């Protein structure tokens, strides 16, 4: 037990130095003479996602989102249990490997983190969640969409994105609204692609749309001509593909080469600007969905702050930002970083975050999770509609309806908490 303690001490020391340093720099007039050396407690929050391998860029994006929240919270100098706290993000690499899920989770448990943001992939999050559950540490995933995650009966497991069985129906409802009568459904035989496609299929069938064929390819394939030819023979009005952009793009291109004119629709895995690079001109007019609100609809404060620090948002950073803020807000409300104490607060939390209003249902899923529908125009994806609770709203209408524009998560959450002897919020 020696090493972690020493490490922890030195980290606290480091945190002290930085906080003290900031204190000296930031306010030019106010605190200069007083600055009593107060005891600063470090609260660690874990973040796990792939930092190496094929989707390392998304993992890094997620980590940056959580990091931003943690840094902002530290700058606010909250008081928990009467002591000023500094938050620290412990970022780990799970390599997107299911085997590594529980192992990395163990690392967090060893380090006694207060809460965990992550992981990125459902396949890794599910095995890891059992370890967190046993240790009683709350975890919030900002991107794992597999319904199973929250169906395990774990009280401490939450997520902020729409589940596959929320996103799927949303796309399906949008397609139905477009008077689609016949659809072909394809997936890439991964947990994500298949799960999403199954939900789309279910909803469309219930809505009386004819599913002319259901095909599967795989996530490394380059040749889709055989299944596309079969689909062409069935003459659908639309095609839905559950899979990533790396396969969705070439598929779309090959379909147009074969003379298929049906509308192409995708889930969030292929809802990226990459599509226009991978499919060229064929990508124009595709329809795709993203769980949650688009980065462009995320609060302006978040977008500006994120851009200044890390550049453009890739995909899920607003969600991990909110996830970290939720944990921080719950800790503040419970006035304790002890998971057992703040977990009930987290379950009951309702806050306005960068991705809209957040509250959890009894399973730990987000209530009323929004799904945004995009189309690709001029090489960029653009939001056209928002589906929430089964209703589809045009994007412009949605923005108007939800005005005044969503506020930044953290400041909005703060007033809701019994203000600890309000430290003059360092307004800049």
């Amino acid at each position, binding site marked *: 037990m020696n*090493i972690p303690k020493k490490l922890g001490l030195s980290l606290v020391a480091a945190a002290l130095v930085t906080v003290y340093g900031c204190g000296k720099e930031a306010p030019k007039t106010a605190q200069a003479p007083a600055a009593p050396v107060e005891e600063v407690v470090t609260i660690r929050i874990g973040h796990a996602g792939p930092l190496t391998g094929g989707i390392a860029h998304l993992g890094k994006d997620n980590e940056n989102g959580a990091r931003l929240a943690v840094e902002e919270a530290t700058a606010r100098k909250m008081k928990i249990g009467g002591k000023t706290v500094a938050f620290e993000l412990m970022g780990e690499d799970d390599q997107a490997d299911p085997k590594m899920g529980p192992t990395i989770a163990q*690392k967090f448990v*060893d380090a006694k983190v207060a809460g965990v943001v992550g992981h990125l992939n459902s396949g890794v999050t599910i095995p890891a969640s059992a370890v967190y559950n046993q240790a009683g540490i709350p975890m919030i995933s900002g991107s794992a969409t597999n319904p199973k995650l929250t169906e*395990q009966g774990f009280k401490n497991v939450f997520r902020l994105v729409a589940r596959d069985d929320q996103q799927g129906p949303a796309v399906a409802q949008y397609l139905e609204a477009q008077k689609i009568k016949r659809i072909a459904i394809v997936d890439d035989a*991964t947990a994500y692609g298949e799960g999403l496609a199954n939900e789309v299929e279910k909803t469309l069938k219930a809505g009386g749309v004819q599913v002319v064929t259901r095909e599967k390819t795989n996530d490394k394939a380059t040749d889709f001509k055989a299944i596309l030819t079969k689909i062409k023979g069935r003459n659908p009005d639309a095609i839905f593909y559950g899979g990533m952009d790396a396969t969705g793009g070439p598929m779309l291109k090959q379909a147009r080469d074969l003379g298929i004119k049906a509308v192409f629709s995708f889930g969030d895995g292929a809802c990226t600007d990459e599509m226009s690079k991978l499919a060229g001109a064929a990508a124009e007019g595709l329809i795709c969905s993203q769980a949650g609100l688009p980065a462009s609809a995320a609060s302006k404060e978040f977008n500006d702050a994120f851009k200044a620090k890390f550049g453009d948002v890739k995909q899920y950073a607003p969600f991990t930002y909110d996830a970290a803020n939720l944990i921080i807000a719950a800790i503040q409300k419970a006035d304790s970083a002890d998971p057992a104490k703040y977990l009930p607060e987290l379950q009951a939390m309702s806050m306005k975050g960068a991705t809209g209003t957040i509250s959890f249902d009894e399973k730990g899923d987000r209530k009323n999770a929004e799904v945004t529908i995009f189309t690709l125009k001029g090489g960029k994806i653009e939001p056209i509609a928002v589906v929430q609770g089964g209703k589809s709203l045009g994007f412009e209408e949605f923005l108007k309806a939800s005005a005044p524009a969503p506020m930044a998560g953290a400041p909005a959450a703060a007033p809701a908490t019994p203000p600890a002897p309000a430290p003059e919020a360092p307004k800049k």
Partner: protein
Amino acid sequence: MHPILDLRHRPAAALVGLALVAIVLVVLPFVLTGIGTFWVRITNLAILFCLLALGLNIVVGFAGLLDLGYIAFYAVGAYTYALLASPHFGLHLPFWVILPIGAAVACFFGVILGAPTLKLRGDYLAIVTLGFGEIIRIFLNNLAQPVNITNGPQGIARIDPFRIGDLSFSTTDSIAGLTFTGPMKYYYLLLVVLIAVIAINLRLQDSRIGRAWEAIREDEVAARAMGINTRNMKLLAFAMGASFGGISGGMFSAIQGFISPESFVLVESIMVLSMVVLGGMGNIWGVVIGAVLLSFAPEILRYTVEPAQRMMFGRTLLDPEVIRMLLFGLALVLMMLFRPAGILPSALRKRELETRRSAG
């Protein structure tokens, strides 16, 4: 055999050596827990890879049959356990019932693979086993339709941990004043299994069967002429290798609590093969060392190569994952070129391989 363990000629030294090793192995998890339970889990995965590598060693090292789809048996064992001890079918059999079943099912698949391929020469066999491994994975990935057997790519969750009476392997307990965490309990269990498997392998190597395999590996025609039933012997190698894979798979399932086909891809087969090759095909201690080295490689790289790169270039140019794969590749090539008998060549294997090479 290694000189330290030479019981017959230097019994005192051997006993002291063994006792020392035993003490280290028993105390190890407590030391590791001191650093972090994380390291116990990593060690557990390393032991699992040792088991796999020892299983593959029977097929590749002893009998000389190159199997590139070995991970399929691991998958079969893992799925057998998962299906019989999870809410998926609502079955919750105890592990001592399932592990033998898993071994038997894997063994059955080993024979299914072995039977039609016995006639094939080494290189064809390699390709067929590779194809077989992929076929198993693709089936596991797709057997959710039309009847849901494997739950497809969604995988199987909430797999039961091992349990003996009231003692669950997944929880933390205090026994005789010592705290045993879940991973520590699994460590001891895995260690016992590993020792058993090593013992079986050592006995096998010097048995009639082991020598028959060796004869087949060296010259199949001559072996047959010596009265060895080469067909049965080869089948036996496949079956035994597969059973070990099946048992390791079952344990993997229980430790993980969740499995899906993405854990059983071709790269894993190649990883296990690299371990066997690095350690020296047919060399039991070498294989164990190879497996331990390569399973810790990612962690070692993470703490050495990454900071080193950052110091030299200011950022990470090659992520450890890439370096690790390059190492696997290099291990295979360089070992074959320069040290075909492995890092710990046994005298016999060394002689064999070298005379063969010069004689051609």
